[in-house]
């Protein structure tokens, strides 16, 4: 089964590990991702000012083109892409004005009926966490994992439909299915400071410190995320301030480890915190 897939700009170079590990892990589970033929940046942020339709044009074009693939689904894994594509899709589907203006501008006829899906949703609904549990065997052998959703996946709840806006559970169920143990992690949907890394570095440093402390308090051996910016902010400030040597992996890398996919296909050359100890534990 091949599903239309929007990798997004960051996954070409900066977060290639997320692209590689997602494709490799899903392929092992029988889900082939096929990249859209031509695409641009999604815009990264959903415009919150009313009538800012120009801020939705890029995402709307991607959605309209994805709909032409005929599958009815579009998979995307980066938290920013997922957030903005899903919200623009929601706007096209539910707002006559958004649908009309965007289609008029793009000279398209897109109705918003595409389902924008995160790989975690595919794993839950298409593979099934029960089947995943059977597939991985001993899996992560009780490795304690802090599930870091960040701010983009679950809010606003009505549009993202990703569980409770401040206490989603899909990632924990995913970890449990891999034979890992979800760590208590009160900061799981807190923001890492996001794009303020370019403007208010101190803010990001403070947030990252608290995030690592919360993860450490829960006994986490690894933090997982689906956001390249969370990953960057956590790792960059982890090194700078030496808070923690808890490795920060993409959830798909963890999935790859549990599925015993060769390390070189998962982009696991950790820059700051070496995941080797984790691998040893999981593969003992």
């Amino acid at each position, binding site marked *: 089964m091949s599903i239309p897939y929007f990798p997004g700009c960051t996954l070409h170079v900066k977060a290639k590990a997320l692209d590689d590990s997602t494709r490799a892990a899903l392929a092992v589970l029988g889900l082939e991702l096929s990249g859209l033929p031509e695409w641009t940046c999604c*815009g990264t942020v959903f415009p919150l*000012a009313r009538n800012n339709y120009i801020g939705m044009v890029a995402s709307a074009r991607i959605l309209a083109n994805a709909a032409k693939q005929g599958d009815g689904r579009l998979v995307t894994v980066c938290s920013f892409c997922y957030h903005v594509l899903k919200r623009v899709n929601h706007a096209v589907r539910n707002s006559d004005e958004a649908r009309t203006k965007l289609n008029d501008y793009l000279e398209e006829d897109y109705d918003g009926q595409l389902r924008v899906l995160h790989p975690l949703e595919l794993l839950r609904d298409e593979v099934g966490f029960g089947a995943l549990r059977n597939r991985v065997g001993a899996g992560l052998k009780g490795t304690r994992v802090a599930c870091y959703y960040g701010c983009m996946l679950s*809010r*606003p709840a009505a549009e993202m439909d990703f569980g409770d806006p401040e206490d989603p559970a899909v990632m924990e169920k995913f970890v449990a299915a891999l034979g890992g143990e979800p760590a208590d992690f009160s900061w799981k949907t*807190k923001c890492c400071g996001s794009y303020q890394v370019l403007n208010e570095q101190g803010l990001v440093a403070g947030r990252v410190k608290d995030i690592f402390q919360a993860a450490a308090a829960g006994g986490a051996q690894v933090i997982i995320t689906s956001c390249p910016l969370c990953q960057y902010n956590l790792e960059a400030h982890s090194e700078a301030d030496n808070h923690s040597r808890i490795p920060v992996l993409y959830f798909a890398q963890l999935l790859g480890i549990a599925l015993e996919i060769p390390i070189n296909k998962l982009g696991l050359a950790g820059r700051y915190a070496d995941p080797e100890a984790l691998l040893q534990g999981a593969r003992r």
Partner: protein
Amino acid sequence: MTGTGIEVTLKVREISGQNPFLCMQCGLCSAGCTGKGTMDMLPRQVMRLLQFGSGKLLDERSMWICTTCLTCTARCPRGIDVARVMEALRALNQRRGVSVLAPADLGAEILADVPQMALTSAFRKLSA
């Protein structure tokens, strides 16, 4: 947009689609705010000044510290999408050419280093 008094409030109301007069000043938005340690004026205070009709708001830094993490939006017991209010304040500034981040401000190292979405989102949120 001169940014005086109640005009700012009315403009914010129009751009955000949110009614600041619904705010009952409980402070849940401030308590959960990502930028609370850095802001000069917390989200609850921003809402209060909007109710008063203070044009000074456009010169405060809070809107530029906001990370649009939507925690305030998720928590507001009055159903106000506070993040949209912050966006409206940014938009009022951006539309008159005011911004806090210009491409030329960024150093070579960070430009080479950060993932794409950091640049694109920062420029959309913080530059005119």
